[in-house]
Every structure is written in structure tokens, then in C-alpha cells.
């Protein structure tokens, strides 16, 4: 999941940069400042959508659209992801991941999606072992016959 998220976010960023670079190159031919912005929404990873903007480092000397383009950081569940591309003579010569998530603990977490689980395989405890009970909202009346009421009575 993390890898997929990172890759799809990176691809999204790269796509944004590519779009930016193309329109930048087009604009460059007319002698205008080379800036471009594009936006797109990212991956299925639960990120909140992303905007991307690319600007050249090379300024007006970008007849060949050369330069380094930095994508905006894309937020994912596993942290921020950000890439940078280098363009030389109209060709992408390098893609660098500036940030690939910033929390170590989460980046080792592959997937936390819910999957079917047999009742026998779920984390269990006897009611004698627990200190409190969670259930769908208990009304005052239903409380009287609930497991929580039994626990509370034992701890008076």
C-alpha cells in the first residue's frame, strides 16, 4: 500500500510536471516567461487530492526548456511525497524523490485495510479479563442488563 501510494503519488507528480514542462516549452517558443501550473488529483491512497505547480529554475534562458522542476508535496496517509525532475534539451534526464514519506513507523506499514476474518481468529478476551466494555450506544435501560453494569457492580 505504501509502495503503491508512493509510486502513484510520484507518477501523479511526474505527470503534473510533464504537463507543466510541455506547456512551458510551448510558451517558451513565444518568448513568454516559462511557468506552468497544472493540477490533478492523486491516487486511491486516501490523500486529499493534490495540486501541482512547476516552475523553471532556468528562467528566460529556457529555449530548450531545460531546468529543474519541483512538484508540490502530495499528502498521503503515510506522509508527504514530493518529486523533482531535471530537464535537459527537452528530455527528462533525472527524477529525484525529494521526500518519500516522513514517518518511519508508518512507512513499514504495508496495509491497514480491513479484510474478512473468521470469528475464531479475532483478538479475544474473556469478560473476566477486561476492565471495560465497548458496544453500540447503550441506553440507560439497556445498561442495567449489560456486561458493563456487571463490571461496575463488581468494582463498587
Amino acid at each position, binding site marked *: *500500500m505504501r509502495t503503491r501510494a508512493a509510486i502513484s503519488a510520484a507518477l501523479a507528480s511526474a505527470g503534473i510536471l510533464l504537463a507543466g514542462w510541455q506547456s512551458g516549452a510551448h510558451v517558451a517558443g513565444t518568448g513568454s516567461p516559462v511557468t506552468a501550473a497544472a493540477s490533478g488529483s492523486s491516487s*486511491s*491512497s*486516501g490523500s486529499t487530492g493534490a495540486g501541482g505547480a512547476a516552475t523553471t529554475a532556468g528562467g528566460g534562458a529556457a529555449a530548450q526548456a531545460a531546468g529543474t522542476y519541483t512538484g508540490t508535496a502530495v499528502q498521503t*496517509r503515510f506522509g508527504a511525497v514530493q518529486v523533482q525532475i531535471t530537464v535537459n534539451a527537452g528530455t527528462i534526464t533525472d527524477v529525484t524523490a525529494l521526500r518519500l514519506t516522513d514517518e518511519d513507523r*508508518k512507512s513499514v506499514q504495508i*496495509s*491497514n*485495510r*480491513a*479484510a*474478512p*476474518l*473468521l*470469528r475464531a*481468529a*479475532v*483478538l*479475544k*478476551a*474473556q*469478560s*473476566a*479479563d*477486561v*476492565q*471495560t*466494555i*465497548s*458496544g*453500540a*450506544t*447503550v*441506553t*440507560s435501560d*439497556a*445498561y442495567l442488563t*449489560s*456486561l*458493563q*453494569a456487571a*463490571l*461496575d457492580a*463488581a*468494582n*463498587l
Partner: protein
Amino acid sequence: MQRTSESAPAGQPVPRPATRRNPALRSRTFRCMGTVISLALPDRGAPRTVPVLEGATAAVERVFTELDAMFSLYRPDSEASRLASGELTLRDASSAFRARFADATGWRLLTEGFFTPERPDGVLDLSGIIKGHAIGQAAAALEAAGVEDWCLNAGGDVLVGGSPVPGSGTPWLAGIVDPLDRASLLSAFPLGGGGRFEALATSGTSERGDHIWRAGAGRTEFRRTEFRQASVVAADIVTADVLATAIVAGGRAMVDWATDSWDVEVLAVLGNGELLATPGFNAARGA
């Protein structure tokens, strides 16, 4: 966490001995918001524990009572009722009321409408967020009073601090009711004890019928839900509570959205009794 299945001896004496397995607790309860709130503290002997417990319970009850007086739609003089009747408009509501309204509408956006503060008849009902907020505020009151180890349960929504065995780092163990047999536990999850999860909320259709509203494309309606019950473990109680509600309303799509977007563990019971669980609830891999 591996737990043995040996059962507790019959006729167990009360108070129980303080062991890691069965930490001795003392608890007090009171009624508010249509439910019962229980506060439990580790038992260090009656003379030391009872005065602290009673003071702490009074502080918690104050928090709940004040919020109930403002937000209950069952009290004709509450701010919520005066808003519902049109006597008051939102722009003239108190800043506390507007803050909770902002929270609730924020959660509606974050859950793509599956959590909503509006009843099908259009009345603003913040009760879906107020109980969680009250639990969180009560926790702040307990910590301000210097109470470090506690377990608060408000109608089945749980928030803990510290450990049932002070200083040990042992987590509180919270059971989850089986919606198909309310006298038994479906599962359990360790909370607190220094871990990152301190809250557990369960939402479902079994206690009050189908009481969860589903927001569709521009409309809110009652709907028979795909899930019978959903439990969410999180760092804070409002997140756990809101997401549990949203999952029962939103079904599988909302489960995936919740687990992808928040650091939570989820255990959901489908209508046919089958389970959907995140890895933390799997006994083989879990917490």
C-alpha cells in the same frame, strides 16, 4: 497479545487482588445524555481511592451535565432546542455551540457525508459529536486534577488514561460486545498503557434500531445498513466515535476510506455476522 482462556474462579472475592490479569478497580456511575457513564480508577485501598474517585466522578459529571444542558434536543430550554424551533439562529448561538457545529460539519466533509449533523427532517442534531467531545473534555478535567490512571466509559464509548496497574505500563483491556449475543464478547483491544491508541468507540444498529442516517446525493435518509456494528480504535475519542458512526452508515467504502486516511483499527460486523477487521484485530498478527 496472547491471552490464556482459563476462566476466573467461581465466587471470586471482591475486591479482587491486584494482579496483571485482574487489576483491582473501583468505579462510580451516573446517568446523563440518555445513557450511563462509568469512571473506573485503580483501587489503592478504600481510604486512598474513594475520595479521589468521588471527586473525579463529580468533575466528569459536571462536564457532561453542562454539555447536555446546551446540546440536548430533549430539553426544551437547551440552545439546541431553541435553534431547532427557530427561536435562535446559528449566528446568534454561543461560540461553544458554533465550535461544535464547525467540528461536526468538518467531519461531514472528511467522511464524505457519511457522518452528518443533520437529521432527515433537517433539524441540526449535534448529539453524534457531543458525547465524544464530552468524554474528551472529561479526560482533560481528570488530567488537570492530577488523576493519571483512569478508564471512562460513556454508553459503550471508551477513553482511558495510563494503566489499570499504576506505573506498570499494562494497558487497559476493553472488550467489544458481540452484537449477535450481547452477553458475550466478540473481541477485545488493549488501550493506553503508553500505546498510541487510547480510545475505542462502537456504533451499531442493534441497540436503538437503525438510528444512523445516511447522507446520499444531497439528501439524508434512514437506511438499512450493510453493517450491524463497527468498532474503531483511535488515539482520540471523537475520531473513533465519528468514524464508527460513518462506517455503519457508509459500509465498505467508508471502511477503506477510514483505514486509508486515519491511523485507526477497525472491527466491523456485517449483517450476516461475518467480520471485517484490520490487522490489529487479528489475534495472529495483532496488537
